[in-house]
């Protein structure tokens, strides 16, 4: 039996990959048009990249998105890791099942609902202290959403970590809190890094939450792009897409090399007798 699964299977794979990549390739090809139409090559030029380089509004949006992304990812790693520790390590306690549900709900809850609920929170008359809509609100929304993803990632790493590592550190005289920082954190570091990157990407990519929670001073990149898609299409957006695809591809390749290359797996827990 051939492992490849025959020609039919391979053709199917090629078909799906084509479906996934043709739209992206089209975006890239037409970013080099010299004309104004986004779906026709009227000569080759880099004029839309030049336009991109001059677009101050876009630059501001990119910077804001990067800032919100980094802040939200960092906060999400903190909240999500704490949640993962509780999910994996705390035995059953009153409310533990509720906690599991509460931590995973943001991943499946439709974004419009999460967005609407947070708008209601941030505009509530008695909660004016939260500062209303704006960058902080977007940061909170992204942190909440991403913390759920980070919790899942970190929890699965914690589950496969050999508990004996922490016990050994304790046994060798290391106080409990220090054990977490000198043993647990380094061992689960790949999951923390992966969680941060995932959170950063989710935040950079989110439109619905950012749009509902933005005020005039807080236009993130997706909010800006969405507005432009509604106000007539220009090949400048293709150029932007090309830049993003290149940056993301390089980043993914680098992360794969750096994070996955040295397979320093923690000692798997041998089934403990008695």
């Amino acid at each position, binding site marked *: 039996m051939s492992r490849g699964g025959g020609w039919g299977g391979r053709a199917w794979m090629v078909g799906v990959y084509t479906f996934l990549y043709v739209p992206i390739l089209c975006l890239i090809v037409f970013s080099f048009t010299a004309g104004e139409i986004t779906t026709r090559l009227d000569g080759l030029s880099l004029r839309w990249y030049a336009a991109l380089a001059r677009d101050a509004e876009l630059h501001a949006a990119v910077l804001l998105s990067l800032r919100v992304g980094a802040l939200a990812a960092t906060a999400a790693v903190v909240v999500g890791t704490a949640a993962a520790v509780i999910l994996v390590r705390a035995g059953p306690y009153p409310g533990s099942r509720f906690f599991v549900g509460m931590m995973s709900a943001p991943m499946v809850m439709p974004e419009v609902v999460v967005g609407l609920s947070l708008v209601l929170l941030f505009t509530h008359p008695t909660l004016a202290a939260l500062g209303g809509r704006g960058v902080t609100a977007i940061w909170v929304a992204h942190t909440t959403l991403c913390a759920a993803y980070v919790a899942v990632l970190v929890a699965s790493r914690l589950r496969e970590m050999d508990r004996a590592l922490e*016990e050994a*550190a*304790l046994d060798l005289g290391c106080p409990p809190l220090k054990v977490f920082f000198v043993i647990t954190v380094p061992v689960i570091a790949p999951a923390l890094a992966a969680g941060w990157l995932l959170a950063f990407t989710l935040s950079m990519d989110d439109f619905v939450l950012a749009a509902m929670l933005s005020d005039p001073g807080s236009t993130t990149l997706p909010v800006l792009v969405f507005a432009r898609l509604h106000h007539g299409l220009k090949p400048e957006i293709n150029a932007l897409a090309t830049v993003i695809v290149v940056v993301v591809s390089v980043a993914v390749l680098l992360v794969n090399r750096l994070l996955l290359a040295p397979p320093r797996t923690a000692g798997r827990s041998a089934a403990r007798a008695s």
Partner: protein
Amino acid sequence: MNDRGAGGARGGVGGESVHLRIERLGKRFGDTWAVRDVALDIGEREVFALLGSSGCGKSTLLRMIAGLETPSSGRMLLDGEDLAAVPAHRRPTNMMFQSYALFPHMTVAGNVAFGLRQIRPRMRREAIAARVAEMLELVQMRAYAQRWPQELSGGQQQRVALARSLAREPRLLLLDEPLAALDKRIRQQTQFELVGLIRRVGVTCILVTHDQEEAMTMADRIGILSEGGLVQVGTPGEIYEHPNCRFSASFIGETNLFHGRIEGDRLVGSEFPQPIAFVAGAGAAPPQGGEAWLSLRPECVRVHQRAAGDACVPERPGENAAPAEVAEIAYLGNRSIYHLRLPGGRSMIASVPAAHWGEAAPPARGEPVRVSWPAPDGVLLLR
């Protein structure tokens, strides 16, 4: 002559001072007691093995001594000091884990130094480095100081783990299934190396194992655990020759067990064709009419050729004898294991040295034989 470790519970330390005293120690998980009512004294510089099958509570007992589990009842005294109030990271005990638990993000030297770095007031860097070098030298791993744990073989990891747990000069070394993660091939050699090293360092050691051979090779004394309770404590020889219950008898080495009732100095009603003569131990006389078991080690069974139809009567007073038939033979070179079938259908095993047959041909499968043993070789067990 049996039942010397009667009661089985507290193993007293002969002559030497008591180092660790465990009193009525118990641990409950939910509704079940993983460890119940364990009392044990362990002497200075003793190597003590807790032996039992998986789930018997031996690891839980060890983890309670290390402070990784909190006892539900009882107490532990180390040199007279109650350990209850001492959290794991302040106990003068160190443990070698079954998985070795080497920190994957630290080098070999980093692993060994880890415990030393926790000492307050802080040790000087050079002092730590010197101690690490000394420890790695002790386990012959000095050349590997800068390697990562995952680059080492199982045996090397085990030695690093040992060096790490000895570095802080623990007053009590705890080994949790020290060799279970190793290949069977290197396990035997490592047993001798490990115990030699422990004796050289002179540390008191408690090891947990499910492997009776490991326990007998390495330990001065063995404590047999079953269902959370200590059933017998003694030297390997004491336990092998004078088991105090069926569990000990069958857990340490192989044995033939015959179940019957006591009538005078005979065990009757067993599956052995005749009443079995036995010699009662020094203690109280066995209760007449009571239930009992006779344990007979395979090497105590004598096997002789016999012509078919031969009557098998004891040749001497106090001897037990019966006809049997060879069911299977396992040839092991210096000896053979005979699986014999008694007239009632019950089988028994005998270990026969190769030299036993002399010039004569050993009996083959299906051939009739005569089995016998002198009464003192059997051990009468009341539970």
